């Protein structure tokens, strides 16, 4: 038989030593390329594109021509392409692996969403087109509005807000408009100028209320961050215009006394704003309208997929109760028999409406409407319910699996909703902090959880797996978390303090970056100036 002796040997020669020299001649590490920023990469004195010589022309700029160089990086197309592809490969996203960032709901963005959003009839339209030329797009908005109101049991909707905090602002402006309308009617009526916010709230809640002139009154939260009806009663008086409450709260715990709280708030002539940031835990299970909520925003980009890094951008529609419905901002949808139209101007609105204004110049994030509706319709009502249940189940699987190794912020018997909160008690006296632990997770190939939030817990670690993770994925995560917790407790702090060890850049100087931020690239000449 003939034998091809030119063949390559396929057996692997064992290395003689485990020693790894971390330095390479190029500065690259295997296929991890050290990528300079664009301006350091390209010579600003040259161009990667050949321009034809300019024919003689009469200069009519009258001395206004640019006196200095542009300073643009002169790169050719392949150089530019490689630069951006290399940068993109440094990114970690939900498409790369588990992204357990608590409070962010980093769930998978189904590719069907992207396919539908790219249909020419949805993609190639312009907000200034006449409504008669885009009936399909308006129907889509109407359908989305219907299902969002159905899921929440609410009566009206403002689709236009661009993200969560913008939605909060919209809801609170509707509440303010309702109070002002009432105050205009009852002459001499007291002006309500206080908004109640639990001290466990998202920071955007008090910021939103303050932005439109309300005073903030803090309601003390219990140890698990929940609020009792008794503490709300204590804080209530005639000055209170509204309460802002997140449910489930920022610690992943359901507000058990929410119905009583809503009742107290309404009796005091105030409104109930619910922050819907964590709606993913209860979508299809609970209708906030039935709990007594007057206004709630959605984060379409969380609850209905397409989180940051997985699609985006943000979109924060707000649903309103019957009492707030007349104050919904422009533009809003009105059904005329079979067809739906968008009311764009205060002058052509229907009689009972008194919109407080408008939140955006156009109609909001239409691409996100398409994706969210695709997600909802491909899941169906039973699928949405199951997604919520799976999200809660996954979080509780992590909670139960890790409870012996890490420390649960609210104790062993506290069932969580869609996210589980740990504190740093299990790291006590190990010399390892929450931040070190998070950095060590990067070495293990995981994006860390949310750290140091919520503030009511010491050294908080907030883990939200979402329903997207399989049991195998969760088990892998659990295994590593247990191993890291054990290592820390055994007194082996070194790998934590040095983490991340295997990234192209080691621990970054976050403090230095915050104290002395360098906000833009400067040329050497500028630096030396």
């Amino acid at each position, binding site marked *: 038989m003939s034998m091809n002796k030119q063949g390559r040997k396929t057996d692997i020669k064992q290395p003689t030593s485990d020693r790894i020299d971390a330095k390479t001649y190029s500065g690259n590490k295997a296929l991890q390329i050290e990528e300079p920023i664009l301006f350091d990469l390209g010579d600003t004195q040259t161009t990667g594109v050949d321009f034809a010589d300019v024919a003689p022309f009469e200069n009519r700029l009258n001395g206004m021509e640019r006196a200095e160089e542009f300073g643009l990086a002169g790169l050719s197309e392949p150089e530019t392409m490689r630069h951006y592809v290399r940068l993109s490969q440094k990114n970690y996203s939900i498409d790369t692996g588990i992204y357990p960032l608590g409070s962010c709901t980093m769930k998978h963005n189904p590719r069907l969403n992207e396919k539908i959003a790219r249909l020419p009839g949805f993609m190639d339209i312009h907000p200034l087109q006449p409504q008669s030329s885009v009936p399909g797009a308006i129907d889509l908005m109407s359908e989305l509005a219907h299902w969002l109101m159905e899921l929440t049991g609410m009566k009206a909707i403002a689709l236009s807000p661009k993200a969560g905090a913008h939605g909060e602002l919209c809801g609170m402006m509707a509440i303010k408009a309702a109070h002002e309308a009432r105050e205009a009617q009852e002459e001499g009526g007291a002006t309500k100028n206080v908004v109640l916010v639990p001290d466990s709230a998202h920071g955007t809640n008090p910021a939103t209320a303050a932005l439109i002139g309300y005073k903030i009154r803090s309601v003390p939260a219990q140890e698990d961050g929940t609020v009792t009806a008794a503490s709300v009663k204590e804080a209530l008086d005639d000055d209170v215009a509204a309460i802002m409450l997140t449910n489930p709260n920022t610690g992943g715990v359901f507000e058990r006394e929410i119905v009583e709280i809503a009742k107290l708030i309404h009796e005091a002539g105030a409104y109930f704003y619910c922050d819907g940031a964590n709606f993913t835990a209860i979508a299809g299970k609970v209708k906030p309208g039935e709990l007594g909520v007057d206004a709630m925003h959605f984060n379409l980009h969380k609850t209905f997929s397409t989180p940051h890094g997985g699609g985006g951008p943000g979109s924060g529609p707000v649903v309103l109760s019957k009492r707030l419905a007349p104050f919904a901002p422009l533009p809003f949808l009105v059904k005329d028999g079979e067809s739906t139209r968008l009311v764009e101007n205060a002058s052509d609105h229907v009689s009972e409406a008194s919109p407080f204004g408008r939140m955006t110049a156009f109609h909001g994030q239409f691409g996100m409407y398409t994706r969210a509706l695709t997600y909802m319709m491909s899941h169906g009502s039973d699928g949405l319910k199951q997604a919520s249940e799976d999200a809660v189940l996954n979080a509780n699987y992590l909670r139960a699996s890790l409870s012996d190794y890490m420390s649960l912020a609210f104790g062993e018997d506290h069932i969580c909703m869609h996210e589980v909160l740990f504190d740093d008690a299990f790291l006590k006296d190990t010399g390892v902090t929450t931040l070190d632990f998070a950095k060590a997770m990067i070495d293990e190939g995981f994006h860390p959880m949310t750290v*140091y*939030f919520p*503030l009511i817990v010491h050294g908080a670690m907030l883990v939200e797996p979402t329903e997207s993770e399989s049991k195998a994925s969760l088990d892998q995560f659990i295994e590593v978390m247990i191993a890291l917790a054990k290592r820390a407790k055994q007194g082996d702090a070194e790998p934590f303090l040095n983490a991340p060890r295997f990234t192209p850049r080691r621990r970054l100087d*976050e*403090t230095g970056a*915050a*104290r002395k931020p360098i906000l833009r690239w400067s040329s050497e000449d500028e630096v030396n100036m």
Partner: protein
Amino acid sequence: MSKTYYTKEHEWIMVEDGVGTIGITDHAQEQLGDIVFVELPEPGLEVEQGDEACVVESVKAASEVYAPISGEVVEANEALGENAALVNESAETDAWFIKIKLSNADELEELMDKAGYEEFVESES
């Protein structure tokens, strides 16, 4: 003669001739981590006891600093604007935040002395 008092919100106030020099405690700066920014009020501001007077921002979070007593802000420590890290280095001395001219010295009686504060910190942990 000066005397220093402490609050449960981890502020200290050293009172001398009717003027209180206010800062955050060493324990507070340690808990906050690296301080990156301090927002101070303009002199002339009238504050009530418990009002938000300053904001201190660390890499972890932003926190309010409350006025331990009522009065008028007479001076703010400009050195902190340049160098917020001073709070981490010398929270209870050079890194004072503001000086307040007391309008009601009786309010001091509600505050703790050093031993009382240390006991309070111990009980909180």
